[in-house]
């Protein structure tokens, strides 16, 4: 029996490895469910957690539906405002993923550009940029993010805070993650730079920018792809941490981190579901994305096989 994907997988090594790796398949399925659920939250969620009018304080702190005093309207219970937790998680994941994706895009564009130039040009540019990267690396990512966040809050006018918060978060998280990209890309560029196909272009007299972005970049996309997945998880986690600390997204648009922060206050008074479900969602998503990243790293690096 040769189905189309088997035939296709014979052409494509990555696909073949994927079809023979149950763990990666499971991780991909879960990650897809999380991302799909988040992206379609306005249609999937039972209610709109942002709509204050629909909330009823009488519904507050209802336990999950399967417990004795549960309510079938709220599958996994409600929080202190009477908000449906399932809807809040779906919307929260959407926000977390949005910030994560935006910041990782920002970090990768910045990091890849800097890394390519440092690796290809070498010399003084390389020395200066990489020392900056070293300094950055000696600070914990969360500290960098807090610092940038704090500065932005100080500079921006107070009434713009809420609307610009997502942008500030993106920049803060992005700036704390670009180093990973820059270092890896620089190392790979060093290797590629000495390969003969690059020398051919140099002999022809091609512009260095063209050599970097047209010739070298496609050849080092493998490692970039790996960091992209692993750091996406890190970025989502950073956003959650910042929101947990209360410096993240505005409270009227709760992200996963905000939900967990609210939940911790009720942890010891018996309302466990408020903290457990958002945390479980975050952990499942992070782990599945990380496993996918690991799979990609192994699959794209022939020496590990």
């Amino acid at each position, binding site marked *: 029996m040769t189905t189309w994907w088997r035939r296709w997988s014979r052409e494509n090594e990555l696909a073949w490895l994927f079809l023979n790796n149950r763990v990666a398949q499971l991780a991909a399925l879960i990650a897809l469910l999380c991302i799909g659920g988040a992206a379609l939250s306005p249609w999937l969620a039972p209610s709109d957690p942002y709509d204050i009018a629909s909330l009823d304080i009488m519904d507050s702190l209802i336990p999950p539906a399967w417990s004795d005093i549960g309510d079938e309207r709220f599958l996994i219970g409600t929080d202190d405002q009477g908000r449906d937790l399932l809807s809040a998680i779906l919307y929260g994941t959407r926000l977390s993923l949005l910030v994560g994706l935006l910041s990782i895009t920002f970090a990768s564009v910045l990091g890849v550009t800097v890394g390519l130039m440092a690796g290809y040009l070498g010399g003084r540019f390389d020395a200066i940029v990489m020392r900056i990267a070293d300094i950055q690396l000696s600070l914990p990512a969360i500290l960098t993010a807090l610092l940038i966040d704090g500065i932005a809050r100080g500079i921006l006018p107070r009434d713009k805070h809420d609307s610009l918060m997502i942008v500030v978060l993106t920049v803060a998280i992005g700036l704390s993650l670009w180093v990973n990209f820059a270092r890896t890309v620089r190392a790979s560029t060093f290797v590629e730079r000495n390969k003969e196909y690059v020398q051919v272009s140099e002999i*022809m007299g091609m512009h260095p920018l063209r050599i970097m972005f047209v010739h070298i970049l496609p*050849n080092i996309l493998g490692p970039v792809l790996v960091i992209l997945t692993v750091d996406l998880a890190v970025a989502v986690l950073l956003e959650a941490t910042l929101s947990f600390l209360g410096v993240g997204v505005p409270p009227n648009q709760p992200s996963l981190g905000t939900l967990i922060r609210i939940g911790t206050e009720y942890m010891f008074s018996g309302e466990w579901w408020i903290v457990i479900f958002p945390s479980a969602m975050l952990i499942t998503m992070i782990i599945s994305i990380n496993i996918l990243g690991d799979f990609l790293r192994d699959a794209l690096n022939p020496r590990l096989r």
Partner: protein
Amino acid sequence: MTALLNIENLSVKFPTRFGEFTALDSIDLAVYKGEIHGLVGESGAGKSTIGAAVIGLLQSPGYISAGRVLFNGDDLVGMDDDTYHQIRGDRISMIFQDPQTSLNPLLTIATQLIETIRQHSNVSRSDARQKAISLLKETGLTDVETRIDEYPHQFSGGMRQRVVIALALCTDPELIIADEPTTALDVSVQKQILALIKSLCAERNIGIVLITHDIGVINEITDHVTVLRSGRVIETGPTADVLGNPAEEYTRALMAAVPRLDKRLDRFRNIVSDDELNSDDTDWHIQDASAAYASQWLLSNNSSQQRPSAKSDNNHDPILSVSGLEVTFNSGQPGWFGKERGFKALTNINIDVFPGEVLGVVGESGSGKSTLAKAIVGLVNPSAGSMMFKGDDLPPGRHRSRKHQARRQIQMVFQDPYSSLNNRQTVEDIISEPINFYNLSTNKTDTRKLVASVLNLVEMPQRAMLKYPHQFSGGQRQRIAVARALVAQPEFLICDEPTSALDVSIQAQLLNLLKDLQQTFGLSILFISHNLAVIRQMADRVVVLKNGQLIETAGTEQFFNSPSDQYSQQLLRETPSLTF
């Protein structure tokens, strides 16, 4: 006399995602004590797989699907792991190709030898050291007592291979499997190592399986030879019989494809028909594209009217003239305080290349051949000297502007076809890049037509332009690299070891191709090679380099018949050849 090693009906298979691949198909082989049995074949013939199967180093997921490997009458295939481990450490040893990687760089030679000796026999540390010293002496290393405590990086390639051989002898084995033991070495060192292997075999009365792709090496030292192709035995027997009077067409062709040192041939015999090509490949055409169109385009657009009528006509001005060239590499980073110390890769080089001539550059590794090429194309900054190209001053290194004419007129073909093509571009993108870059074509249809035609010219199907480099073999990739150099309409081509990564049969094809192109378009070529026989077939004049210095410049015939310099004579003497 019973055989030391008897391989019966051995088959090895590798399950892949394309189904099972048969690496060895019913191999029969017998190796006796005191003889060297050569396994020869091109890459993919299964020579190394035989060695790996005997010593149990088959790469997973490969497995032995049928047959027996009898060592002194015991079957190694069905043996339990403990007994097998005893035998293969103790009585069968292996010598690998690359002495750089087969020694642990972090341990001294003494540690590695003593550890191996003590692993297999119960002797004291000092006894083991004594034995190690005597073994190293046996392999011809001098000054052993002091050098034994040094690290592998302090030895040269040839010395390191001697240490590896000593390591293989540690346990007094009865059988040694040598997998391309001299391929990574220069000819002069290769000669010594081969002599060492031969004398060890005779003195110790051990059996040696010598795996090599070089039929010259086979001719030099083996007693028996087995010719392999695609996992099958083509021919086997005493070396003198097989090579002197080959029964099989393939053996004959394999020998014919080896460039000869003693005479110059017009063309090599073509052994392998391109059976990889299917009708799918040949049916696909771009309208009006053909090899003829490509040659017409290459000839017509070329600006140089001064095409030489006769070769090596010394009345012409040289197309390239290098004088007093020096290249200095600074060792490591100069640092902020230390004084820059340099290593002279090239010293006072003077070379003239005349239009339409092929100048061969010969030398061992480290002689500066490639540095010379890189200095000419501007990849390396010379520290002194000047270059003239077509009568004009050629600015060196980074002083050469990106738009300089010579950047188009001088093209280069590199050694390693696996790294000289960008794997993420299609062949069409790769070949059309110079056309677009130098504005040699007016529109896209024309460019496509040119790419297809040039592919035909280098004897590739036009359909190849749709594929990616990794879908091609080494020889085909090198053709693509030649095509890329050609479309720039160069007048001067530098070939840096263009065939040393290829099998002999593929090498023969590529050399034929280069010859044809050179004659058709009157290209001037700087042909760099460590292989004297290849130089003999290709070059009109020869330049010998040693440690960055010019040793000798001579016409090819004169050089091969009566070299004037002592070093050149030594080089010629040490190259293994096929003459009887």
